[in-house]
């Protein structure tokens, strides 16, 4: 599988805080990469930089949209927006920030379709209903307002609203953060199934090693803006080499 997304030598500072220090990482089609680390490690900054939401101070992000790897900086604002609108997806940690709570569930799911040019109400509605079923929300709730949904339902709605355009690359920022454990399990299961079935490439940020083990093929461990260890998920977690990785793995509470 060819390389879909590649970061080379990313640097980013916020004031005096070094968020990214010479970070390089790559992702292939249909691959799931987890970025693991604690708060302040730079993992969210890395995710946002990969997704084109933040411009790095140094280095660049390259994406292969079918014509070879090209830097995001060469895309232009409109090109990047169009990419983010349909071929890419971004699942945020807080679904309330990503959804419109005063627009119906169907409208929320249809939004990306409409933003990409969909102009047939019936088709949009059908796609929305199908995706509600995919994320295990009763399709009869298509006209309900999300402000009455539970946290887990909101997150599933966000996932539906993100995947409806059939993106090939999805970024996820702690998609199960803040949810009850049983709800988390359901959503992780959903993500796992959808990602495999749709052949998505995914970059997922998580502080939860269990999530990384469940979902990811490969893993990078971040500390203070640097990648300290990288490799196959099971290898990094079962045979951690770097001191920080060993600490992370040892800190997981057994059930």
């Amino acid at each position, binding site marked *: *599988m060819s390389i879909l997304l590649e970061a080379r030598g990313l640097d980013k500072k916020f004031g005096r805080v070094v968020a990214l220090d010479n970070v390089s990482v790559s992702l*292939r089609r249909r*691959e799931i990469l987890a970025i693991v680390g604690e708060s302040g490690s730079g993992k969210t900054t890395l995710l946002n930089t990969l997704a084109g939401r933040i411009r790095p101070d140094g280095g660049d992000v390259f994406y292969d949209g079918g014509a070879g790897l090209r830097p995001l900086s060469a895309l232009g604002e409109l090109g990047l927006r169009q990419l983010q609108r349909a071929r890419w997806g971004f699942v945020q940690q807080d679904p309330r920030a990503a959804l419109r709570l005063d627009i119906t569930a169907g409208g929320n799911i249809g939004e990306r379709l409409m933003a990409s040019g969909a102009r047939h109400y019936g088709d949009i509605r059908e796609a929305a209903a199908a995706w509600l079923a995919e994320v295990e929300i009763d399709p009869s709730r298509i006209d309900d307002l999300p402000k009455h949904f539970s946290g887990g339902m909101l997150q599933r709605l966000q996932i539906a609203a993100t995947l409806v355009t059939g993106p090939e690359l999805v970024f996820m920022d702690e998609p199960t953060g803040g949810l009850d454990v049983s709800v988390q*399990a*359901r959503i*992780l*299961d959903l993500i*796992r199934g959808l990602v495999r079935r749709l052949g998505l490439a995914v970059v997922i940020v998580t502080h939860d090693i269990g999530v990384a*083990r*469940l979902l990811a*093929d*490969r893993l990078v461990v971040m500390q203070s803006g640097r990648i300290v260890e990288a*490799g*196959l998920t*099971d*290898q990094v977690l*079962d*045979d951690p*080499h*770097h*001191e920080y990785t*060993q*600490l992370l793995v*040892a800190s997981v509470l057994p059930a």
Partner: protein
Amino acid sequence: MLQASGLYKSFLLHLQGGVRLDVLRGAALSAAKGEGVALSGPSGSGKSTALRALYRNYLVDTGEVLVQHRGAMVDIVTAPAETMIEIRRETLGYVSQFLRAIPRISALDIVAAAAIDRGVAPDEAREAGTKMLARLGIAPRLHGLPPATFSGGEQQRVNLARTFICDWPILLLDEPTASLDAGNRDVVIRLINEAKARGAAIIGIFHDSAVREAVTDRQIHFQLDPHEKAMA
């Protein structure tokens, strides 16, 4: 089929003040088509480490593990991640000692997923999965349930089913029958021998001497002394 040589593996335990454990010092082993090889030795001697190194679950410091994959010999120690994933999907099977239960996925789906990953149609995969689970004595009423609530032995049998549903050119087995009774143990022996008859190379750790004798043709003995490794 598989040839490992010059395997050196140390564990540097940063959290224990930087203690270094030299577990593998130049270990070597191989397995040919249709051959069964047992790794034996006292606990702590490195046999489990060696087995995991063959799967790249542990990463050796130096050494070579050549595996016959898609017609060529590939060194999995230096292979890129995507090649390793491919090898683990097509060529190298691994049965761990315990099942890592994923919440909400039924036993049948866990077993069928392995086949579906290989490209088998979902219906066919589920059919084959049902048969395999039955063969390993998992009652039909359990097929649709997630294994998290199963007994240790039942979980291990699901684990075994997940691997044996596919044909593997090379199979790595880590104490596959440890939690099984005699009847199920015999089923596993048959499964392993059927795989061998199809040309699979088997490398495993078998505590149970009866199993070991039934499925392996030679042993590689690991010794506790970290400065010597002997081959039986």
